[in-house]
Structures are given as C-alpha cells and as structure tokens.
C-alpha cells in the first residue's frame, strides 16, 4: 500500500515536470502566431475583464499601501522641484526667445513636422496588471488591445514622458514593455549644448536608474539635462519611437565615468512604479512601414 502511494506520487511528480519541460521547449521555439501563443492570447482575452474589475476594486487597497511610500517620496520631490523651478524660471526667458526664432526658421525652411506627436492618435488606457518580478521582466498590462487599434510596437507615454512600447496584443488587452525592462534599448538625444546621441538602457538591479550609453567620451552633458527620444529613420527602418518624446533628466554626469564607460545616469520623467493610466500612441495613419528597435 505504502509502495503504491510512493510510486503514484513519484509518477505524478515526473509527469508534471515533463509537461512543464515540454511546454517550455515548445513555447520557446515557437513564433508569435503559433498555437501555444494563440492559447495564451485567448486566455489573456478571457482574463482581462476579470483583471480589470479586480484592478478597479483593489485600487483603494493599492493606494493605502502606496500612501506611506508616496508621502515620503512626495516630500523629497517637493524640495527637489522647488530648486528645479527656480532654475527653470531663469531658463524660460531664454527658451521663449529660442522658440520664437525656431518658429521663424521653420517657416523660412518649410520643415516637415509629420514625425511629431500630433500625427499620432493618443489612446488613454488603464493599467490592469503587472508581473510580480520587475527585476528581469518589467512590463504592465493595459485594458486596450487590437480591437482599439493597438499594434505591437506602438509607443506608450505617461506623465509627459516615455513609458515603453507595446510588445504583445490580445483583442481587449495588451502588454507594454517598459524602458526599464532589460530587453529595452532606445536611441536617444541629450539636450546638451551639442545634442549628443546615445543608447538608453536600464541599469541592472536598479531599473529606475537609466543609463545613456555610447556617448562621445568628451560629451558636455550636465546634471538636469533633458533626454529625449532620438527617433532615427533610415530608408528601410524607422525607430519605434517618434523623435523628441521626453524620457528623463540626467541625474549623474561624472566626467570620469563618461570618459571610461561613455555613459551618464538618467531618472525617468514618468513615475513608472505608480502608473494607473498611460497613453498609447496609435498611428500615424498609413505608416505601416517597417519599424525597428535598436538592440535586442
């Protein structure tokens, strides 16, 4: 009797492990349109209304737990923002003059603004889910999918800053891979005196510390410089992100680190850990050309 129980237990254990390994192997080798991915898409479609309901119902609980951290962070942010406001006030006058000159020059040169955000349709969507492990997979689930016109690769913004891009689409929900995901790479431009370009990647272990890498060794990047999307375009490929979407501010620009590692540290503008709503940039209309992401 005991032997029979032991044999049964071992058989079930081996069966479960084998099924898991088969699923893992089959899924890993499959393309995005294959059966297991389709099943996954179907389950996500069925689950998304439940998750959306749970997300709305549990929002007060989330807010309660978030309140403690938010209060401490808000006080720190208030002091930082006061100092920042004073600096920005000084810059505003200069920028207004520059803006006026820029408008005049645009008119003179008749520049095409078609790659601006005006060309995109902004869909405001609710965040309904998030994986527990944000160290190696930093994504979030939103309540809009292909039925709302969302496509894989659409850029996502929030709080006036870049959040990431759509990486998986079901009919009524989709997943957004954040700029803090290890797989994310964004071509960026630093708004310093020279407009240096680089590649934005998250710092491992501290995803909210973004790194702009591959900068020129003698780039004159300073703390508080703004980093925006580069939005490169070649004859065949186009970046996932349109140009000039703000991403973050430089928090640390150490000349020694710049000379040795060619990188500076950036804090994202969007509060990526406390997002309830984000905006997906759908379109621009008729631009179904090949888009690319730098890196993996």
């Amino acid at each position, binding site marked *: 009797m005991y032997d029979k129980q032991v044999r049964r237990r071992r058989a079930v254990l081996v069966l479960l492990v084998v099924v898991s390994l088969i699923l893992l192997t089959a*899924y890993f080798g499959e393309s995005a349109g294959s059966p297991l991915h389709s099943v996954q898409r179907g389950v996500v479609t069925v689950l998304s209304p439940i998750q959306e309901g749970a997300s709305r119902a*549990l929002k007060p609980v989330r807010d309660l737990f978030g309140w403690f*951290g938010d209060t401490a962070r808000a006080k720190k942010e208030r002091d930082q923002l006061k100092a920042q406001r004073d600096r920005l006030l000084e810059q505003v006058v200069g920028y207004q003059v520059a803006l006026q000159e820029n408008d005049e020059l645009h008119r003179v040169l008749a520049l095409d603004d078609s790659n601006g955000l005006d060309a995109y349709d902004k869909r405001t969507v609710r965040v309904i889910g998030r994986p527990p492990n944000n160290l190696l997979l930093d994504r979030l689930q939103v309540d809009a999918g292909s039925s709302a016109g969302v496509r894989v690769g659409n850029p996502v913004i929030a709080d006036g800053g870049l959040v990431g891009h759509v990486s998986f689409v079901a009919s009524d929900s989709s997943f957004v891979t954040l700029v803090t995901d290890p797989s994310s790479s964004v071509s960026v431009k630093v708004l310093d005196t020279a407009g240096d370009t680089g590649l934005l990647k998250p710092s491992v272990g501290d995803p909210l510390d973004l790194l702009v890498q591959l900068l020129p060794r003698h780039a004159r990047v300073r703390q508080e410089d703004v980093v925006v999307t580069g939005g490169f375009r070649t004859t065949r490929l186009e970046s996932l992100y349109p140009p000039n979407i703000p991403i973050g501010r430089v928090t640390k620009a150490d000349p020694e680190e710049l000379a040795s590692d060619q990188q500076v540290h950036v804090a994202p503008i969007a509060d990526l850990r406390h997002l309830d709503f984000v905006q997906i940039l759908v379109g621009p209309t008729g631009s179904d050309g090949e888009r690319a992401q730098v890196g993996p």
Partner: protein
Amino acid sequence: MDGYQLPLRLAALGFLTVVIQIAAVSQVTVFGVSVDLSPLVVASVGLLAGSLPGAVFGFAVGLFVDVALVQTLGVTSLLFIAIGYWAGRLRELRDPAHGLTPLAVGAAATAFATIGFSLMQFMLGVRAPVSWLLLRQVVVTILIGTLLALPIYALVRRVVQGSLPDDPRRRRRRAYTTGGLSPLQRPSAGR
C-alpha cells in the same frame, strides 16, 4: 462530494491568488521590489496538504501565472512544482510542529522562486549582467516574502481547513497528548 472539497477550494485559492497578485499586489512596491504572494501560497498548500497536492497546485498556479503574464510557459510551473513538493515532503517526513516553520518555509520558497526565476531567465537568453544591486533586490524580495509567510500560511490554512485529508501521524500524536499511551509506554507484546 467531500472528495472534491479540497481540489475545489485549492482551485479557487489559486485563481484568486494570481488575479489579486497581478491586479493589485504587484503594483505596490516596497523598497523598489514587488511582493510575490504566489510562492508563499504554494508552499503553504504543500505544508498543509502534502507533497502531491502541493506539486499539482504549484504546477497549476505556475502555469496560470505564465499564461496570464504572457511569459514563457513552463518556467514558473517548474519552480512552483518544486516548492509545493518540497514543502509537502517536509510535512510528511519531519512533521514540523514548531509555529515558525511556515516562516522558514516561506523564506526558502521566496528565495527559490526569485533566484530560480532569475536563473531561468538568464538561461533563456535575457541579457543582463549580475550586479550587487540585483542581488540586493533579491535579498529584499526574500525578506519581504519571509515577513508575509506567517499571515499567508494562516490565511491558506483557514481556506483549506476542514477539507484536508486525515493525517495518521497527527492523529497518533493527538492520542498521546490527550492521555493515550505512546508505543514506548505501552507494555511490549514481546516482554
């Protein structure tokens, strides 16, 4: 009907755990990391129900997590099978009666799930170097999991209470403590 009570309760528990985890708990960060309740629930089920229900529950919850979060299928299942099975074997082999056992099991389950998930992701090709910061976050995740282990265990015990199969070892121990004679105290048949 009684035979279906435990599977039905476990199915409801697993479903609610994953939905609440994804919809609410994962969106709250403590010291920069999200709390993961699912390994704690799987370990608690293993401790309370045994190795076989623990392994099956771990497989089901892991698969549900992988499907719902559009992750590589099988990764979380593999980890949770091990957690549920080992927690169950601990109960069957050692029958730990100490009140802090769920705390130690919860810590081990969180550590195994966090480190195992990271290793599996590295093996599957996530290109991210191991850093001290990453290790620090793993340690924080384990600490938070340890703190939550006891309340989660109490909650799971409340859910499955009354539907657990009889455990002969526990029955025997109850008999000694309520006045029954242990085999050592009984007059030996051979004497």
